[in-house]
C-alpha cells in the first residue's frame, strides 16, 4: 500500500498527466463501485481508506476524479477544502489526498494517528497547542501540548514533510533532533510562543541541509552553551530567514558573520540583544539584499573595546530592499538617525522594545509615509501617536504596548492618542492599544472613522475602569465598535462593562470569531447574549467575570462549532461543567486546578473545553480533571 501511495504522490506532481495511457493511477474506490452494483467503473478494491488501483484505460468517472485531483491541487484555502470534502465520499478522498498543508488549530482536537490516516501527503503542518491565556501564566506548567506524539507519528508517515509551524507547544530538544533526522527535505521551522527546548535542539535543526527558514518568535529558549550558529551547512546554506531575537544566550558572532556570508538567499534576519550596533554594521554589509531586519542591541555599550568608536551606520543606507525593521533593544536614541534613509520604504516598523519619547519617534516617523504596520511603546505618548496619524496614511495595524505594565502605572497614552489615530489612519484594520484611561467618545469616533477595522483590542489596564470623563461604563464605546465596524472578526474588551455591552456584541457582532473578556459583565445574561448572538464565534476566552452555570449551558447549541472556550475565575461550579460534559459527548471538558492538585469543592477556577474527535487526552497531568 505504502509504495503505491508514494508513487501516486510523484504522479501528482505531473499535474498535466490527465489519465493518458500507461499506468493511470486512480482512486478506485468511488461511491459508485460500492453502492448497489454501480456501473462497473473502478475495477477491484473497495477500500474506505482509499485503496489505490491501477487500470489500463480510464473509465469516465475515473477521469473525472483525476481531473478533480488535479484541480484540487490548486485549492489552497483550508476553508474551501473543508467544503470540498463535504460534497461526497469521492470528493472527500480526493481532497484528502491532495491536501498538502495541514492546519490543526487545537492539537487535542484530533489525534496524530487520525490526522495521518486521512491526510497522507502532507508537506506542511501548522499545529497550535495551549490556550492563549497560557501567555499570561494562567495555565500551569506541564499542562500539555507536547509535540512528541506528533513528530514521532509524522516521522513514520510523512517522509516528505517540509514545513512545521508550531504555536504554544511544548517542544524538547529530542523532538527537534527527531525532526531533523526524520525529514530529509525539511525546509521550514517556525516556533511561536513555544518552550521546552534549548540551543542544543536548535543545533540539531540547523544541520538540515535544505533548511530555508528558522524562525523563533517569542519562545522561551533554555539557555545553553551550544554554539548552534556554527551548525548550519557548509559551504553554502539555503537560508532565507533566520529569526532568533528571543534567544537569550549570546551567539558566536564570528560564526554568525560567516553564516551570513555563506547564505546568498538570506532576506530576513532578526538578531538577539547580544549583537550590538558595531557588529550589526559588519553583518549588514554582507547582506545588502535584506528585506526584514531585526537589530540586536541598538547601542554600543556591550562593546568595551570600542567604547569610543562611533559605529558607522551607513550600512543602513545600502540596504535598498529593507521593508521591515524591528529590534532596537537597549536603544541609544542618538543613533536613530542611522535609519532615516530606509524609512520611506518601510512598510513595517517595530519599536515595541524601544524606550523612545515623542520627539524621537517623530524624527523617524516623519519619513515613514508607506508604513502599514507599527508597533510602539506608550513612551511615545499621545503626541507621538498624533505624529503617526499625521504621516502614516497607509497604516493598517497599530500596537501600543505599555512600558509600565501595571494597573496603576503612569498614563502615557490615552483617548487623545486613540482619537488622533482614528482621524488620521482611516485604513486601519487592526489595533491593540494599552492605556490607563479611555473615553466612550474616542472609541465611538474610531468606530466611525475606521470602517475597515477587523481587529479591535483595547486594554484599559485598570480593572473595571469607567469612561474617565463621564464616569459611565464603556458599554457605548464597544457597542459602537460592533455596530459600525462591519468587518470585525476579533474583539477584546476591557474597562467597566455591564451586560449591556454584551447585548450589543450579541446583537451586532455577527462576524466575530475571537472574543476576549476580562473583569466585565454583571450576570449570566452577559455571556448568554454572546453565545446566542454570535454565530461565527470560535474562540472565547473569559477571565474574572461573573458568569455562571446557566450562562455556560446557554451555549450548548454552539460549542461544537467552536475551537475552544476558556473561563477562569468566573462563577462556574463542578455541577455545571459536569452537565455540559454529559450532554456534549464530543466536547472535552477540562477543569484545571493549581499545579499540585485538582480543585476541591464545588466552585471551579479554570475551565477549558474544546471539541475533539478522539475524546479525552491521555497525557493530562494530575491537576487537570477531564469530566
Amino acid at each position, binding site marked *: 500500500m505504502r509504495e503505491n501511495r508514494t508513487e501516486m504522490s510523484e504522479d501528482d506532481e505531473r499535474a498535466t498527466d490527465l489519465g493518458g495511457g500507461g499506468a493511470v493511477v486512480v482512486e478506485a474506490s468511488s461511491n459508485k463501485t460500492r453502492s448497489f452494483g454501480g456501473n462497473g467503473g473502478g475495477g477491484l478494491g473497495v477500500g474506505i481508506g482509499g485503496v489505490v488501483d491501477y487500470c489500463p484505460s480510464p473509465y469516465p468517472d475515473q477521469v473525472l476524479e483525476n481531473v478533480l485531483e488535479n484541480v484540487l491541487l490548486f485549492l489552497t484555502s483550508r476553508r474551501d477544502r473543508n467544503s470540498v470534502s463535504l460534497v461526497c465520499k469521492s470528493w472527500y478522498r480526493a481532497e484528502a489526498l491532495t491536501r498538502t498543508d495541514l492546519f490543526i488549530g487545537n492539537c487535542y482536537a484530533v489525534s496524530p494517528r487520525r490526522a495521518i490516516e486521512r491526510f497522507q501527503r502532507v508537506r506542511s503542518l501548522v499545529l497550535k497547542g495551549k490556550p492563549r491565556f497560557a501567555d499570561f*501564566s494562567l495555565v500551569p506548567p506541564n499542562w500539555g501540548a507536547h509535540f512528541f506524539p506528533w513528530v514521532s507519528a509524522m516521522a513514520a508517515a510523512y517522509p516528505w514533510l517540509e514545513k512545521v509551524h508550531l504555536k504554544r507547544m511544548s517542544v524538547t530538544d529530542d523532538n527537534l533532533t527527531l525532526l531533523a533526522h526524520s525529514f530529509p527535505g525539511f525546509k521550514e521551522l517556525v516556533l511561536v510562543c513555544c518552550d521546552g527546548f534549548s540551543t542544543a535542539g536548535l543545533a540539531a535543526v540547523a544541520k538540515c541541509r535544505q533548511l530555508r527558514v528558522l524562525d523563533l518568535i517569542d519562545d522561551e529558549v533554555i539557555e545553553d552553551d551550544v554554539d548552534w550558529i556554527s551548525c548550519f551547512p557548509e559551504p553554502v546554506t539555503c537560508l532565507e530567514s533566520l529569526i532568533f531575537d528571543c534567544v537569550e544566550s549570546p551567539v558566536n558572532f564570528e560564526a554568525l558573520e560567516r553564516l551570513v556570508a555563506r547564505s546568498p538567499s538570506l532576506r530576513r534576519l532578526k538578531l538577539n540583544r547580544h549583537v550590538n550596533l558595531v557588529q550589526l554594521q559588519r553583518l549588514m554589509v554582507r547582506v545588502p539584499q535584506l528585506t526584514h531586519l531585526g537589530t540586536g542591541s541598538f547601542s554600543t555599550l556591550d562593546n568595551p573595546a570600542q567604547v569610543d568608536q562611533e559605529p558607522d551606520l551607513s550600512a543602513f543606507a545600502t540596504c535598498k530592499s529593507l521593508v521591515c525593521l524591528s529590534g532596537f533593544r537597549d536603544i541609544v536614541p542618538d543613533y536613530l538617525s542611522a535609519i532615516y534613509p530606509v524609512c520611506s520604504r518601510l512598510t513595517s516598523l517595530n519599536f515595541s522594545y524601544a524606550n523612545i519619547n515623542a520627539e524621537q519617534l517623530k524624527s523617524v516617523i516623519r519619513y515613514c509615509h508607506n508604513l502599514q504596520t507599527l508597533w510602539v511603546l506608550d513612551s511615545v505618548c499621545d503626541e507621538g501617536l498624533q505624529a503617526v496619524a499625521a504621516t502614516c496614511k497607509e497604516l493598517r495595524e497599530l500596537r501600543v504596548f505599555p512600558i509600565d505594565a501595571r494597573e496603576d502605572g503612569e498614563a502615557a497614552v490615552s483617548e487623545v492618542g486613540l482619537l488622533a489615530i482614528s482621524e488620521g489612519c482611516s485604513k486601519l484594520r487592526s489595533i491593540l492599544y494599552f492605556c490607563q484611561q479611555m473615553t466612550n467618545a474616542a472609541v465611538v469616533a474610531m468606530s466611525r472613522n475606521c470602517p475597515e477595522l477587523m481587529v479591535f483590542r483595547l486594554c484599559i489596564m485598570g480593572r473595571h475602569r469607567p469612561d474617565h470623563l463621564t464616569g459611565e461604563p464603556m458599554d457605548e464605546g464597544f457597542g459602537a465598535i460592533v455596530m459600525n465596524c462591519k468587518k470585525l472578526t476579533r474583539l477584546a474588551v476591557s474597562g467597566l462593562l455591564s451586560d449591556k455591552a454584551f447585548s450589543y456584541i450579541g446583537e451586532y457582532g455577527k462576524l466575530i470569531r475571537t472574543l476576549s473578556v476580562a473583569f466585565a459583565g454583571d450576570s449570566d445574561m452577559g455571556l448568554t447574549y454572546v453565545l446566542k448572538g454570535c454565530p461565527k464565534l470560535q474562540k472565547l476566552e473569559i477571565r474574572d467575570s461573573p458568569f455562571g452555570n446557566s450562562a455556560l449551558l446557554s451555549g450548548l447549541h454552539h460549542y461544537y462549532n467552536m475551537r475552544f472556550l476558556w473561563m477562569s475565575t468566573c462563577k462556574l461550579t463542578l455541577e455545571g461543567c459536569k452537565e455540559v460534559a454529559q450532554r456534549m459527548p464530543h466536547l472535552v471538558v477540562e477543569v484545571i486546578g493549581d499545579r499540585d492538585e485538582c480543585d476541591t469543592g464545588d466552585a471551579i477556577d479554570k475551565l477549558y473545553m474544546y471539541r475533539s474527535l478522539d475524546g479525552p487526552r491521555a497525557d493530562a497531568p494530575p491537576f487537570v480533571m477531564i469530566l
Partner: protein
Amino acid sequence: MERTVTYENDLNLKATELRLGLPGTDDSDKQTPSGVRSNKRTLSETTEECRSKSNSGTSDARNDDTETAPAAKAQVVGWPPIRSYRKNSFQPKKTEAEAAGIYVKVSMDGAPYLRKIDLKSYKGYPELLKALENMFKFTIGQYSEREGYNGSDYAPTYEDKDGDWMLVGDVPWEMFISSCKRLRIMKGSEARGLGSYV
C-alpha cells in the same frame, strides 16, 4: 501609599480594617469554599469608585493571586495581559543594573579604614564630592580644569581601568563611573603637587 491589603480569614482582621469605599460595600466576602486562599485587592481609588458604582455582580471578581507572595504588590496574575517576555524586557535589566550598582572603595589618606560607595547613586560630580566631604569630614576646594582643586589640602583621585591615577572631574560623568575602579582622597603635599601639575 498603602495599596495592598491582605485579608486573613482566621483573624478576621477585615472587620477592624480601614479602607476606602462606601460603608456597606463589602467586596471581599466571597471566599473560595476551600477558604484558605487569602483575598488580595488593589485599593486604588478608581477601582473602589467603580465598584461602588456598579455594585451588583462585579464585586466578586477574585484576584487570582496564586503566584504572588502575600503582602507583595497586589498585581493580579496575568493582568495586564502582556507576555512576560515583553514585561521583563524592561524591568529586570534595569533592576539588575540598579541592584548591582557600581561599588568602589574609597580611601582617605590618614583614615584608619576604607569606605565603599555606590557611584550609581549619584547623578554627577557635585553630588559625589559632597557625599565624600560628608563621609570623611573634610572640604574639597574649587575645581578648575587648569588647576585642579584649589584652596584645600585634599584632592579626590581615582584609579581608572588602565591602572592610572586620575584627578576626579576631568572626564564626563558617564565615562568616569564606567572607568573608575577605586577612589583615593589625597592629602597634603602630594595633593598640592597634583594640582600644580595641571
